[in-house]
């Protein structure tokens, strides 16, 4: 069959148009199939920027702190290692001097009570998280709802994030944590970690997905207030609008999402 240039161009043009149209149809169909495969749990708590308010007036006895810490450790299989060089911390007690460095020593007329008061600290789930910026594998990343998440599958244990975090909220597994989790405290619904990964508070993403509040909030009896900082009607915003609040090291520009009030 002989074909002149005009005819060839016609056929080429028509088939190109058909081709483009065809792929878009196929693509939209494929997206439909894929979209129907996975979905978030409809009961899940959703927000744009989860945050906490720590009401220090509710923390008076050692028991008040311990309740929150133990609730977290139990739910997440956090090991209890006595060696401070190896210990794993998700939520813990910190002295004023360490939680808010500079201020305690600088302000010598600060009330003695505050100066010697332990503060409950945890990952700040920063709006501008330095740990995420330095992670070479994106094992730590910021979710759409503001949670600074850890993907243990991807962590290579380089500990850049630990160097980057100004709050010391990250712990490295120097050794296998399993022997340090008591069997009766083990939560068989949640994984442990393995040697060589960095871990930290994950804001109970697994509980939020089921519509539950974080374990520490549940255990705190009102000492920890949890909610969406982006939502002006949320509980945290209401508390923040009626109290003077402060955060850890705000001058670093990490925009922490954990607020402290008295």
């Amino acid at each position, binding site marked *: 069959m002989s074909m002149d240039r005009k005819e060839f161009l016609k056929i080429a043009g028509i088939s190109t148009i058909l081709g483009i149209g065809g792929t878009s149809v196929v693509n939209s169909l494929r997206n439909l199939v894929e979209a129907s495969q*996975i979905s978030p749990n409809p009961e*899940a708590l959703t927000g744009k920027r989860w945050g906490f308010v720590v009401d220090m007036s509710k923390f008076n006895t050692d028991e008040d702190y311990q309740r929150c810490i133990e609730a977290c450790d139990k739910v997440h299989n956090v090991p209890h290692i006595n060696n401070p060089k190896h210990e794993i911390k998700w939520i813990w007690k910190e002295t004023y001097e360490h939680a808010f460095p500079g201020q305690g020593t600088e302000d010598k007329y600060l009330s003695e009570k505050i100066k010697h008061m332990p503060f409950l600290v945890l990952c700040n789930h920063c709006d501008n998280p330095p740990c995420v910026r330095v992670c070479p594998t994106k094992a730590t990343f910021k979710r759409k709802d503001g949670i600074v998440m850890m*993907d243990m599958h991807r962590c290579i244990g380089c500990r850049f994030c630990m160097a980057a975090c100004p709050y010391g909220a990250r712990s490295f597994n120097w050794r296998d944590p399993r022997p340090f989790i008591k069997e009766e405290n083990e939560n068989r619904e*949640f994984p442990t970690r393995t040697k060589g990964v960095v871990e930290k508070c994950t804001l109970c*993403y697994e509980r939020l997905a089921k519509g539950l509040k974080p374990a520490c909030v549940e255990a705190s009896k009102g000492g920890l207030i949890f909610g969406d900082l982006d939502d002006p009607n949320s509980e945290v915003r209401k508390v923040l609008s009626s109290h003077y609040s402060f955060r850890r090291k705000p001058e670093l520009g990490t925009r922490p999402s954990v607020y402290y009030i008295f």
Partner: protein
Amino acid sequence: MYNGWKIIIGLIIFVGLITAPFIFSGKKATAKPDPKVDTPEILKLPENERKCVEAKSYMKGEHMKLLNQWRDWVVRDGDTIYTNAEGKRYTISLQNTCMKCHSNKTKFCDECHNYAAVSPYCWDCHIAPKEKKS
């Protein structure tokens, strides 16, 4: 042939050495894996509900890909519900969905993984179901 006997003896020794692993290991090393799906949890289900998340043939060949996608969907995207080809919904979780039925990790997972000489590191972190030693 010069030194014919020496060469033949040498050849016999050579063939013997090469085939020794196959002869001595016998059937044991080559025994076909036989993963079991007869856990009490599965047997408790009515006959017509004894189905995995996806078809058996798909799970056999592609479960590692499915698990890989599951982990990304849950950990990275926060999507925790999986709808299978039949429209049934499952919570995406190795520990709480897969292993709730397949509570026999040694007979179900390890059987094939050992045979294929693959050692996935799932159980370094994920807690395997407790099994009765029989």
